[in-house]
């Protein structure tokens, strides 16, 4: 009996028509795909994308080189070296690298930072063409922070109440 039923089902492509019906029904519904990259999906202010290092309103880098982000990073993606800065002797990083191949975008570094120096921006589309470009250097991170200054600041204040 079963064999017969299956034979008839496959002979008349019954399952395929069922599927086509589902597909067909979408043809007339309202579309929810977006035309990336011209169009973008909404993002949370807590989105964890590419990192940035912030500067404060005086242009001074926020990072004080406490190495808490380095210590907390589960992927060991951050490498920091510190020392007293030449001119004023304040504690600064002399090297701040994030290896984006290692990073898992967990945001722990952001959580750990006592001065909101390292943040994760909404930038999520970037690519590398050469080996080594995956390592973001301090200057690059600071530049990203400057470029996206307003966005970062508004995101920070938006999420302040959850932290």
């Amino acid at each position: 009996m079963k064999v017969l039923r299956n034979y008839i089902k496959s002979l008349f492509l019954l399952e395929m028509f069922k599927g086509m019906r589902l597909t067909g029904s979408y043809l007339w519904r309202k579309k929810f795909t977006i035309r990336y990259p011209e169009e973008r999906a909404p993002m949370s202010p807590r989105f964890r994308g590419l990192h940035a290092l912030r500067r404060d309103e005086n242009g001074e880098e926020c990072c004080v080189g406490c190495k808490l982000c380095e210590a907390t990073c589960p992927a060991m993606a951050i490498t920091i070296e510190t020392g007293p800065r030449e001119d004023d002797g304040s504690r600064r990083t002399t090297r701040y690298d994030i290896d984006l191949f290692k990073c898992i975008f967990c945001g722990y570094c952001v959580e750990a930072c006592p001065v909101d120096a390292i943040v994760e921006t909404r930038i999520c589309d970037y690519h590398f063409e050469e080996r080594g470009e995956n390592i973001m250097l301090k200057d690059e991170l600071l530049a990203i922070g400057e470029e996206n200054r307003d966005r970062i600041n508004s995101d920070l204040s938006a999420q302040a109440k959850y932290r």
Partner: protein
Amino acid sequence: MTEDSMVTIEVDGQELKAKAGAMLIDVADQAGIDIPRFCYHNKLSVSANCRMCLIEVEKVPKPIPACATSVMDGMKVYTKSPMALAAQKGTMEFLLINHPLDCPVCDQGGECELQDQSLAYGSDVARFVEKKRLVPKKYIGPLVETNFNRCIHCTRCVRFSAEIAGMREMGSTGRGEYMKIGTYVERTIDSELSGNLIDICPVGSLTSKPYRYQARAWELTQSDSVAPHDAVGSNIHIHVRNNRVMRVHPKANEAVNECWISDRDRFSYEGLYSEDRLTSPMIKENGRWVETDWETALQQVADGLKEMGAGTGALLSPSATVEELYLAQKLVRSLGSDNIDFRVRQSDFRGGEPALPWLGLGIDEIEAVDAVLVIGANPRKDQPILGHRLRKAALNGASVCYLNPLEYDLNYHAEQLLSAPANMADDLAAVAKAVGATGAIIDDAEVKAQHQSVAEQLKQAGSALVLLGNLASAHPDYSILSALAAEVAKASGAKIGFIGEAANSTGARLVAAMPTDGLNAQSMLEQPCKGYLLLGLEPDRDFWNPTQAQTAFKQAEFVVALTAYRSASLEAAADVLLPMAGFAETSGTYVNGDGTWQSFAGAVQPMGEARPAWKILRVMGNLLDADGFDQNSSQDVLEQARNSADGRQLDNSVTADLGQERRLNGSGLTRIGDVPIYATDALVRRAPALQKTADAISAAIRINPGEAAKAGLADGDRATVIQEGNLATMPVEIDPGVAGGSVRVCAALAGSETLGGQFGEVTLEKA
């Protein structure tokens, strides 16, 4: 109740036996019961001012400090009762009122007692919203960084300075909110133990300046080692990050260094990263230095040494490890030469030394002696931890006397006999006569009141000690001095001790890194050898007579130097430079002054192509087809070295003859060429922070006002020292602490390498 009767107390329900009169906090510590504290430190006096250790005791209405409460029989103590916890929490809140939220930028972060305690006892919300106190930071020297905002006024640093460093350098002024720690007047802290302030401060108020902002405690891996600078062999922890030594901390060892180390041991690691580290083998080709590979360099060395054969002289650093010295002497002996010596700062080899000189007693026994006579030594600067033990002895009531050509700035009361180098033997003979000894010089000695008083003190003491140090062993009449010292010791019933000059002076003798019938360090330079093997030495700084050494090396046919550094003088002297591993880069063993063998492992990889010297020597042995160079590890070498040392006993018996000819006579001016504390070896000389301290003096003619007037010199003049036709021009400093008839021109400093021996006749000419 007598002091040593035992009492039984109960702490948190646990029954404990304790000595009556012991402090509660100590008893709890021994039982592993944790009581929080800041101001208490077991090596310092109790001040009970932080109130962190408050605990509850039954039948006492208020919480009381455990650090200032002695145990009593039947006492019932609760360290975790609600009353105790409330008291601790309250104290914590008060302490944090003025403490800044500095942890992210504070070097103590991650190893801070305040952080730990506030995690355990603090609250998570601060109720204090008013302004915090601000205290400006003060400059207290190149080693210790201050940030008094963080100070919690435990006064550990104040007590350390007064009680351990013996300098009332720090104190507190003001009360309550206005209390401030500092040096009373703006000045630097010039103690040779000042680095310990960094450890003693429970917070980040006093931190290390060279290590400032370099690393975090959690990034460091720790390995144990032994300090390479003096005969104490202080136990240390080396903290490493990314194959780089980041800092050095003391490792507590009651028998050696307690919980302190000297600044030299703590900060010398910086010298490892000096620019003139030698990182690849180099050979001289037609007068030019070229880098090469190990194979070529070693082959050249093997060929060279083979040719030199029995004409080779080996001069070895007394700071080299037992393994290195053992292999070096074995290698040279296999060439048929017995010209091996490590006593590069000695000039009198007439047999005044005992067979195997050592300290004569354990380092920790020094503080229990009743009288000490120190001859030709300044332990405070030469072996700071030994100096500290001597100070403890003095504070315990021992009478300490010094016989030196220089008057030292001591941090305890001591009688100092000031005697020109040429007269030291006479003064010592007078002391010997006063204690009742007889003999050649002794009988003619003129006993004065000061000799009599030293003699009385030695004779009356229950346990007395006569110590000879660095200046004595460099003295041209060392034989006579040590023979006289032995007479003094014999007649007064004192022990005699020889403070070895370097980390391994005792070890070098144990592995026979000295000639049996060959040439000694002095004669090897006087009658130059055909070739030389140098281990860890710099021709212009490390020899008794640098001019003689440099000349001898220059005229030698072949000189190979195993060294961690390249320097102009080595490049002028050597034909091949082999880069050897420096401090912390090699495993090894040191035998300290009291004969304790202390082994350590390497903490970091040697820099560049450098290799541990024992490996270099072992391969050299193979290339020379010598027997017995098949060790696979430094432990193998150590085992053989130990076996070879088996028959040798530490032995301080002096057999020298008192009637020997005196080499220094009192006519004219005599040079005193002591080696200052931060010039002792190649590593220290390259440690930048130490070189900025007040103790890192530069070359000068130091002379007392009387002699200066005679020579027509004034403070600040420049003058030329002429010693055996060798000249050096340097500034003049008036120093009343220099004995008459002598002038202090330190050795091992830049500018003094053109002069002759550490002691000798000089003339001064105004430049």
